[in-house]
């Protein structure tokens, strides 16, 4: 069944995507088509088939606990849209 406008709005909020009403309507419709197209998945026989999350067949990949030089403060902040010279600066949290 197609996504309700509420579902689309909820998903957009989860993804923190500010969408215009027109975008919500259009993307909602496109999602319906895509979900319809991929509904073939629901018919696949996957009884006792394991899940594949990765294809490298690797396990226990780790590093030894050795610290290394970090960036300097100014390097860390260099690309930030807003700082106070020491911290990343963001607007007030009103949640």
């Amino acid at each position, binding site marked *: 069944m197609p996504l309700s406008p509420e579902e689309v709005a*909820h998903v957009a*909020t*989860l993804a*923190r995507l500010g969408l215009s009403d027109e975008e919500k309507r259009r993307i909602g419709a496109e999602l319906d088509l895509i979900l319809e197209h991929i509904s073939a998945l629901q018919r696949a026989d996957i009884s006792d088939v394991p899940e594949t*999350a*990765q294809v*490298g067949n*690797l*396990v*226990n*990949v*780790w*590093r*030894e*606990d*050795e*610290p*290394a030089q*970090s*960036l*300097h*403060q100014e390097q*860390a*902040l260099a690309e930030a849209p807003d700082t*106070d010279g*020491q*911290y*990343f*600066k*963001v*607007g*007030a*949290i*009103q*949640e």
Partner: protein
Amino acid sequence: MTMQTVHGGVAAGYEAVIGLEVHAQLLTRSKMFCPCSAAYTKAPPNGNTCVVCLGMPGVLPVINREAVEMTVRTALALACEIPAFTKFDRKNYFYPDLPKGYQITQYDLPLSLNGHLEFSLDGERTRCGITRVHLEEDTGTMQHAGDVLQEATSSLVDLNRAGVPLMEIVGEPDLRSADAAREYLVRLRQILMYIGVNDGNLEQGSLRCDANVSVRRVGATELGTKVEVKNMNSFRAVHRAIGYELQRQVGVLEAGGALVQETRGWVETRGATISQRSKEMAHDYRYFPEPDLPPLQLSRETVEEIRAAIPELPQARAARFSEQYGLSAYDASLLTATQADADAYEAVVSAGVTAKVAANWQMGDVAALANEHHLALAESGLGVAGLAALLELVESGAINGPTAKELLTELYVGGGDAAALVSERGIGRVSDQSALATIVDQVIAANPQACDDFRGGKTQALGRLVGQVMKATGGRADAALVNSLLRERLSG
């Protein structure tokens, strides 16, 4: 304060159901997934970061092996099972202190499961189940201009802490009072410090505790509405917050009200929990397997190696102490409070000092001095060996108690060789025959009455004479020797 908060229980007819969720930063050298230092407080803000923990485009995490081993060590110390297969997952949510927009944590296949922690509460054995111990990464920290979040105009983000290895220890809702909750946390902290995985600092947040608190009618089987309590930065806060919350919930129910499932923050200054109900940005963490990290398969051998390296834990050690050194359960638990205390005690005893004597001194004068100077015995000028040497002088009779006390106080901070000082100051016990004999003769000459009384059978008169000799020697005379000298002369 009513009886209920004193004992941290709930009003008659109700039962408290409490489960603690503890987050503990691991004492690794580097962060969980990048080589930045895990000692994040030393650097200037954001000066302990790299492209990985800043969540720059294109970076990838690499697991810190030591963090995995510390978590397994903890899990084993808490009697958990270690599954053969475990993996990391992504927990997706947005917050400025979470650089990647997801936290790498463990969801459905944690490093460990089904453990428990036992402790005694008012002399009763209590057991709290441990649901799981898993490994994840810490977030950064934020400061809000205007300390009340709601009134803040802007916020500052420091990512020095982002990516520090963090262990989550989820307890079962088996705790039935604030006292039990506090004791559980005390014992858990003690174990984490014993096995060297955490520094136990609740105030600075390297050890953090949230509580899930609910109440239900006695006999009820289904759980009441659960409230999550946060911002408890000390044992006292944990105890008070849970006590308050239990009372609040009972109060609501007694007033015929209904409880809301919510998160409440403990506000020390108000001595109350207040709702942190946020403008509901619906939470749906969309966990899924972390594609950047292959899973872990810990062999039995690896797990057993880690188990073998676990030191004797506080409870076992306390039990052994009372067994081996004939100490009361109370003394034993005091002496095993920290690994340092327990090690010091055993060092002193193995140096030849009688177990009981070592215990009394360490729990008494030594503990007092340690408090007074905020200086543990091991770090003090005296040191563990120094204490052993001093107590040996006492036991050999070379010095008496009061002298030993004076020396202890002096040496604790300043340090020095007790034996040397004793001889140099001539404050040793007077047990030289001829020296005492002269004093004894003087005392006999000066106390004819007492002597006659003794000869007349009033044996207690001897006590007065001994007292006089002691007086004359500044209490340092060997009482036994004085006794025999007097008897010998008076029965002559």
